[in-house]
């Protein structure tokens, strides 16, 4: 089946099975490798991308369900002013350790701040709890979200 997807503002046509997860379309067919495979069952959040600004797990999102929704990946998130702010905060606080989960963390954090510009700690927990970080950079992720939202660090 041929599918035309809008990824980071550009149209791409791919020929694949309807059930192919968006994650593998991005990685193997479109060569956008910033979105990561971590668990394949929506338990770790490493593959988080946006569909029309809403965070979804690309590893369990079949390509057939994307339709006309705009796909945004880590490669395109800097075009979103909130995303750019999140990346900036991440850098100034030196958030990553190994860095593997951070694309997913940034996508979730950007979606959180787009919807909730000044999140409380509880809101941060709720939005970010599905994004695992094996290095456990959580203290800095929390700080960076607060910093990107213009709130004083806790």
């Amino acid at each position, binding site marked *: 089946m041929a599918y035309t997807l809008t990824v980071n503002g550009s149209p791409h046509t791919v020929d*694949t*099975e309807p059930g*192919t*997860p968006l994650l*593998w379309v991005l*990685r*193997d*067919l479109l*060569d*956008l*490798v*910033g*979105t*990561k*495979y*971590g*668990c*394949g*069952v929506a*338990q*770790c959040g*490493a593959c988080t991308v946006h569909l029309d600004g809403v965070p979804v797990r690309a590893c369990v999102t079949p390509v057939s369900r994307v339709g006309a929704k705009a796909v945004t*990946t*880590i*490669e395109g998130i*800097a075009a979103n002013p909130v995303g750019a702010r999140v*990346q900036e905060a*991440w*850098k*100034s606080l*030196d958030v*990553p*350790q*190994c*860095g*593997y*989960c*951070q*694309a997913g963390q*940034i996508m979730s954090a950007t979606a959180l701040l787009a919807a909730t510009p000044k999140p409380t700690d509880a809101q*941060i*927990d*709720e939005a*970010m*709890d599905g*994004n*695992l*970080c*094996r*290095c*456990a*950079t*959580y*203290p*800095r*992720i*929390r700080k960076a979200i607060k910093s990107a939202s213009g709130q004083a660090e*806790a």
Partner: protein
Amino acid sequence: MNAPVLSRRLFLAASTAAGGGLMLAFNLEGEARAAGPAALSAYLKVSPDGKATIASKIPEVGQGMRTALPMIIAEELDVAWEDVIVEQALADTKVYGRQVAGGSMATTLEWDGMRRVGAAGRWMLIQAAAAKLNVPAAELTTEPGRVVHAASGRRLSYGDLAQAAAAIAPPDPKTLVLKDPKAFRIIGKSHVQTDTDAILTGKPLFGIDVRLPGMVYATFLKAPTFAAKVASADLAAAKAVKGVRDAFVVEGGTALDGLLPGVAVVADSWWAARRGRNALDATWAEHPTSAQSTASLAARAAEFAKAGAQRVARADGDVAAALKGAAKVVSASYDYPFIAHAPLEPQNCTARVKDGKVEIWAPTQNPEPGRALVAKTLNVPPENVTIHLIRCGGGFGRRLINDYMVEAAFIASKVDAPVQLIWTREDDIQHDFYRPGGWHNFTAGLDAKGDLVAWRDHFVSFGEGETFVRSGGMNSTQFPAGAVANYQHEVSVMPLGIPTGPLRAPGNNAFGFVIQSFTDEVALAAKTDPVEFRRKLLGEPRLIGPEGQNDSFHTGRMRGVLDLVAEKSGWGRKLAKGRGLGVACHFSHLGYVAVVMEVSVAKGEAKVHKVWVAADVGRQIINPTGADHQVQGSILDAIGSTLRQKITFENGAAVESNFGDFPLLRMSETPPIEVHYLLSDNRPTGLGEPVLPPAPAALCNAIFAATGKRIRSLPVGDQLA
């Protein structure tokens, strides 16, 4: 090229860099490497544009060595950090010496040598400037990127001097004057990791991001029971899946860390390979370890506990007599489970095999054993195997073993294209080299004053005779060894058919839990405050064990961090009902660490409210932001594994398979962590591991303080319900 300069440890050779400038080749193995050509070496390059390029030889797994080690060179060279370019060296121990991300040893082993490399470069640039300005070198000094002649106010940039410096003979490293640490401009200041921009923008960086022309993707299905052979597999069904190029059985061997039997599926995309694998409907042959289970191992351990130890590994004094004469005897048995590493990037490797040459792109912590394994398995000379070191999406010790590397190379040898093998998460959890479980049967004796007079630990582990399985051994120097007159370390082992291996602070990650938890029980029996009891046990500041030996233990250094963490945490303060403070301290990887946690328990769940850490890893923290990362990450790693992680075995296979049943700690469970470094007059040592071991006991001791429930078996799980 000038004649190379040798010292016992450091080998230096200067030449003109390609494109001009100074190329300073160096090797920290000194004389052992002197025979080889100098170009075959790690290097520091100073280019005519003033940039300093530094080869980083240690694999990067998130521990920050691609940043911290170049910082050391840059400091002594005296260049601005913005002018430093870090290049990843290939894997080649013959050229670079030790290339292992493991044991927390990089800082310990490289600190002095890296300083001297930078200082040698600076010295040569100064000599070049002295010749150019026609002044004595002694009148010259440097500021970042420049040699300065203060008397005349003249300055020459490193870039302008680099070419001339290349013609100067390198100095004898022993004669170099290193910077006064008070003058450090880079070391001791936080520097963001060198790869951070690439991480934050999703650039290809990790093993699974490698792309080669014509590359295909592979999965490899192995038996749930380790090393069981393939009985049947529907290869035709797999090949019928669109995009699948090939599917074949791999005979494999029986060595658990080698190429195991399985079925490979190769396809145009990984998803197609995955679908092909689902169609295999494979069955597996009976295997000698098919009956092995967590329950059967525990039953055997219980028999050992009852029957007594197979052997005595260390006996100081007379434990039996001391226990007989003790005013009070305390006994308790502890155990901990197998656990998996679960780095977030699943195991993967890319390989190309052509004309007898093997080229590998591997996220590995320890490339050389992988090279040997690949060479042996593919029957090619080791020098025909090239290994590119790729940033690892987490390691924690898992990638010290290169089973996935040999799988990728073997599959690539059967396919006329480069192959990228990617494991599923289930493959990763079910085919790990697990932190082995273990059992400790303790007995301690106290005299009438409440002082410890006897300590016995009957350790039950895995192995045969006097040999332990990998990472299943225990040193007989664990404190309080040497601090109590009657000390006995006993050992029993049983055979095991499950792969085991090092996990962050191997051995110690479990010994810290059992020893520091039991110490708390003994303190309670002695009716002494847990911090005060540890102080008494540590006694006068002294070294237990020979000078210069890695497991020799300095009681004064431990006392230092214990006192510091007690002060910072407000030890002894009154807490609300249902809350408790727990303390633990442990020595490993040359680091002394004490931890206090504040914990409450509600609805059967422990919640950590705050953590205080005091660490003594010598006189210098190189990159504070990276150091804090390691400390906080170790603490959180320990909280996650202590509360919930275990791998259970049934029918010789792992039961857990993904993050649903092998949970990692989450954001909402993360307490604030206060980190304090006690800078002592000792050489700087590693920080990736020593903070983890005291944390599980600090947590469980806090649970006891809060609830009166002693946790003697990990994980905590539902024991608080």
